[in-house]
């Protein structure tokens, strides 16, 4: 995985193991000697943070599953039993519940860092694809996890989202019955969602390993967007980035724990503390905040099938980004016009999220449609055209060149 020379092991036991299974050599190559650009800023902390949150979610989830009952008659009360009777059960559940939101905050920042510094461009297209697949798997996992407490929003959120598939021509209704395992959302649905919610995080973990494999093949991008060319451009991952990542984890934990201990239900909906009732529909069915931009895109198209296609298209378009972006220059640092459109696009996504949180009436309809149109305009028209027209600023010859200049 690494171009660094193989280390020599002096400890006899380590050497014995390593000769048979080169696990220490692998660790040395990918977490110690691994050459990393010396100029990474703090936006590069979010990859390791995402892995950290994934591990927290796995650990808390495994322990929660020991006390959770996936049955329509018991699910809600079993969650409350975790909150009230399991030792530190409230802590486990609040860590897991807020961890979901934290995971999306971290991953969205990671993704927008990619967009800003052009990290998806050659030779990192496959690295980027795996990232997009991880995002899709995270969305599926989060959606099914939200169903498990079997509150009102769990039930009705699941109803809305699974019904999307009925928009598929001809076989739509069959697909929905197949997903439900019956003719309505009921016990079979809850059971399979629990099973898949337990399975998918391990799939995400596997994908993260492949993501890292691809990363360590092409090496990290960096704020300048020029590749590592000489040994002077890079520093070993340990101790420089291990300590920087640990510091990042510390700052992140302060943010995360603030919500866990002082505002544990900040990201949640009060309605989910009402047990699921198929006979009573809540006045507003809203998904979790991290789905709101996509929910707004879904509702912006007056046609049901069109809305579903647009919503999935909003993610699928990301797969084509390495080719939609025609610019020769990677980093927005040297792309004065793209840099501004990047921020406009970010604002557009926030506006979409805000529209998604509100009922589709009045001016929200129009704002939602305009921001949906802009979302696709940004990727499908702006990115290709800008690459040809934009006058870019001169790119430094290497990573160490501008650093040396600053010194002089």
């Amino acid at each position: 995985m690494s171009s660094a020379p193989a280390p020599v092991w002096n400890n006899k036991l380590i050497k014995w193991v390593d000769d048979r299974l080169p696990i220490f050599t692998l660790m040395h190559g990918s977490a110690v000697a691994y050459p990393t650009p010396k100029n990474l800023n703090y936006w590069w902390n979010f990859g390791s943070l995402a892995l950290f949150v994934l591990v927290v979610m796995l650990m808390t989830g495994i322990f929660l599953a020991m006390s959770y009952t996936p049955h329509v008659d018991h699910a809600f009360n079993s969650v409350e039993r975790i909150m009230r009777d399991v030792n530190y059960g409230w802590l486990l559940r609040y860590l897991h519940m807020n961890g979901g939101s934290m995971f999306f905050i971290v991953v969205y920042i990671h993704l927008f860092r990619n967009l800003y510094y052009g990290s998806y461009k050659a030779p990192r297209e496959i690295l980027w694809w795996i990232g997009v697949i991880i995002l899709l798997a995270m969305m599926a996992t989060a959606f099914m996890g939200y169903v498990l407490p079997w509150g009102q929003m769990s039930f009705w959120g699941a109803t809305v989202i699974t019904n999307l598939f009925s928009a598929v021509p001809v076989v739509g209704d069959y697909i929905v019955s197949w997903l439900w395992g019956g003719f309505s959302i009921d016990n079979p649905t809850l059971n399979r969602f629990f099973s898949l919610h337990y399975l998918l995080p391990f799939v995400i973990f596997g994908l993260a390993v492949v993501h890292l494999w691809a990363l360590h093949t092409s090496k990290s991008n960096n704020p300048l967007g020029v590749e590592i060319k000489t040994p002077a451009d890079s520093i070993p991952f340990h101790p420089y980035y291990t300590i920087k990542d640990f510091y990042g984890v510390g700052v992140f934990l302060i943010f995360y724990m603030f919500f866990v201990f002082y505002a544990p239900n900040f990201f949640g909906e009060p309605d989910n503390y009402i047990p699921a009732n198929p006979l009573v529909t809540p006045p507003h069915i809203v998904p979790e905040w991290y789905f709101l931009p996509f929910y707004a895109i879904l509702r912006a198209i007056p046609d049901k099938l069109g809305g579903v296609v647009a919503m999935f298209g909003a993610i699928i378009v990301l797969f084509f980004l390495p080719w939609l972006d025609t610019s020769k220059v990677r980093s927005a640092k040297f792309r004065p016009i793209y840099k501004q459109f990047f921020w406009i696009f970010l604002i557009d996504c926030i506006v979409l999220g805000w529209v998604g949180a509100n009922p589709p009436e009045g001016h929200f309809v129009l704002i939602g449609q305009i921001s949906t149109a802009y979302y696709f305009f940004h990727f499908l028209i702006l990115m290709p055209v800008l690459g040809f027209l934009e006058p870019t600023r001169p790119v430094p010859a290497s990573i160490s060149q501008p650093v040396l200049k600053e010194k002089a």
Partner: protein
Amino acid sequence: MRSLLSLALAAAVGVFAAGAAPASEGPAIPKRTWSWDGVFGQYDVKQLQRGFLVFKDVCSNCHAMKLVAYRNLTALGLSEDAIKKIAAEKEVMDGPNDAGDMFKRPARLSDRIVPPFPNDNAARSANNGALPPDLSLMAKARKGGPDYIHALMMGYKDPPKDVTVADGMNYNTAFPGNQIAMPPQMQDDLVTYADGTKATADQIAQDIAAFLNWAAEPELNERKSLGLKTMIFLVVLTAMLYALKRKIWADLH
């Protein structure tokens, strides 16, 4: 080109301002202060006891609280013997015994608070068709939480002239739709507090809201004190990690 970004920002701000205050939300609930507000806030045990008295003597005649057990009431500072006595006032169905018969026995500490009606249909039938909701999670299941509960308790007013209140319903300023089946409950001296607190309607409404918040978040005291320790630990740890990071990176430049 800077202007392009500022133009977009201005447009976004304009859009936000124009779209503020969605129409179909319930009435606005004023924010109140509670003993458990803030980082150091904890429940006031005396207030929880007063709230429990209100719940026991008034609310629990119609409302269940199925997620709370009698044993949990020790958190209110009540003695085990006192709680045993309270539990024994109610009967629960148990069995089958050795002869195979179901039998009734007084409730124990390990039982959940005994609901006033055996099932939802019985509750509806006794309440003019309306189902009094379980109160275990009320403070978490409504926007505004304890503020909402207090506002609802104090929100019974004469309806405006243009509003016709349906038969068996009551006009309430805090309830979404303004028509609620529950009749007004709060009045001065509805209960007599053992600790000498004057039982004004507003005081009773505050106390019941505090008690219901405890019922929904019994872990709050422990959560906040553990949170404070965790935060102090994390801030010190992170400061040390930052110092170490500075030291390790110092030889690079």
